[in-house]
């Protein structure tokens, strides 16, 4: 278990210059997630445009892994439909929970493949998944609200 497998250059880059960081006004749902083990937190908003995720804005307090992962989430999901976002999420989650046995697909995960090393550090998997779980929760709420809105309109 080489620590360099965990701290890939790409991860450290995202950590130092996170993409899309900060909470922006509006948004169709906001969630607050906590990693109870370490206290890391994220407040995350999903901004939809119909089916499409127009923006994911967030305020994250956490380690390099969790911050970089939020940055990659922003890269991979913004501009895609919610359904596509969930597919990417599934791939990312599978990679994280694969204990290092899952071969990541660069076409799907792009910079996310740098997280392959995290899977070998069980204690850090939660860090990598924090923002993704927040996205899942927020997107589910947002589409639920949309659907409810449609029904009632």
């Amino acid at each position: 278990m080489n620590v360099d497998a965990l701290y890939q250059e790409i991860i450290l880059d995202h950590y130092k210059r996170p993409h899309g960081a900060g909470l922006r006004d509006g948004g169709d749902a906001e969630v607050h997630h906590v990693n109870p083990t370490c206290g890391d937190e994220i407040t995350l908003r999903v901004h939809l445009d119909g089916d499409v995720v127009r923006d994911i804005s967030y305020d994250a307090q956490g380690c390099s892994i969790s911050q970089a992962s939020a940055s990659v989430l922003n890269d991979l999901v913004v501009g895609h439909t919610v359904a596509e976002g969930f597919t990417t999420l599934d791939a990312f989650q599978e990679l994280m929970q694969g204990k290092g046995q899952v071969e990541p697909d660069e076409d799907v995960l792009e910079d996310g493949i740098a997280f392959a090393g995290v899977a070998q550090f069980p204690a850090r998997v939660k860090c990598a998944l924090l923002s993704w779980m927040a996205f899942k929760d927020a997107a589910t709420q947002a589409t639920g609200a949309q659907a409810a809105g449609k029904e009632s309109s």
Partner: protein
Amino acid sequence: MAATYDVAQVRDDFPILQRRLAGDLPLVYLDSANTSQKPRQVVDAIDAHYLAHNANVARAMHQLGAEASEAFELGRTKVAGFIGANRREEVVFTKNASEALNLVARVLGDAGAVGPGDEIVISQMEHHSNIVPWQLLAERTGATLRWFGLTPEGRLDLENDPIGERTKIVAVTWVSNMLGTINPVADLVARAKAVGAYSVVDASQAVPQVPVDLAALDADFVAFTGHKMVGPTGIGVLWGRYDLLASLPPFLGGGEMIETVTMERSTFAAPPARFEAGTPPIAQAVGLGAAVDYLSSLGMENVAAHEQAVTAYALERLLEIDGLTVVGPTEPVDRGGAISFTLDGVHPHDVAQLLDSKGVAVRAGHHCAKPAHACFGVQSTTRASFYLYTTEAEIDALVAAIWHTKKYFGA
């Protein structure tokens, strides 16, 4: 007895069975319903954990912490698999079966599941640990405690069924630790379901002895204890349906069971963590995992068959002794390996003492089942109880020691 089951080989795993007692007599351990002995495999697993992998769990992110966490959670996974749980998160570690039963009673109470006019149904053959928590709950909430009586043979009197419209909780034992009776728990669970009551099964004597399949049982909660299933002391299990656990408030507050804490208020983690405040029984979970492995390697079908064969032999031999009365079913049908009896003219204490003087370890007293004793008009009994290492030769030693006791007391 299954052809694959070699009791002599099994005994080799239990160093204590080689113990010599006073007078250089060999130990004949017939007190497994009190606590089981531990195979070397279990003790070694605990040892290795402390000496090479010890760290706190969940919160540590160093290598030792990862090892300890993995070992601890593997214990949970093994237990879940052993009883056929749907999800490993349904396995809550407690300190013993008593805590598991109290946990259910407290949180159902705190959740407002029972109130005045509501009824909680137990039975007269329960262990005190499945009586007192419900008495205390009834007292706190104004609910009424009702119970199944017993037939003269020592089975549940199912004809007079106290389960009804007002029943909110049914809590019964699967296998009686005193009478040996195996109850039709799946039926009782179904009756509880039919009236919309929660079902709680005390499986403390069942999980060690019979193959358990939670899907077939369909209960809401199941409690059992590590030390009776060749595992360590200091650990018990509450299994609960996940959605139900997730809907209930916490039991004890503290480290590990929280989501976030401020001075003003706290929020709580998902099950099982919600119900596991503080540092859990880490080495004990490792030991329990090893116990489950051990039982699985023997095969629970084989363990059950062996138990039944030894019990049948013991019943036959004991019933030959005049003046000896078995309290509980005398046929080896739907019956676990605990036989309680009285001996005319000799108090159970004195029986146990005389047996002990011959190296035969049994228990005398009320076996934490005073109401069941009261049913049969006795204050106490002597109980011989068997397990996967018990031999017919040990039953013979028991019988010989009982004859000696009779002579000693001129009874």
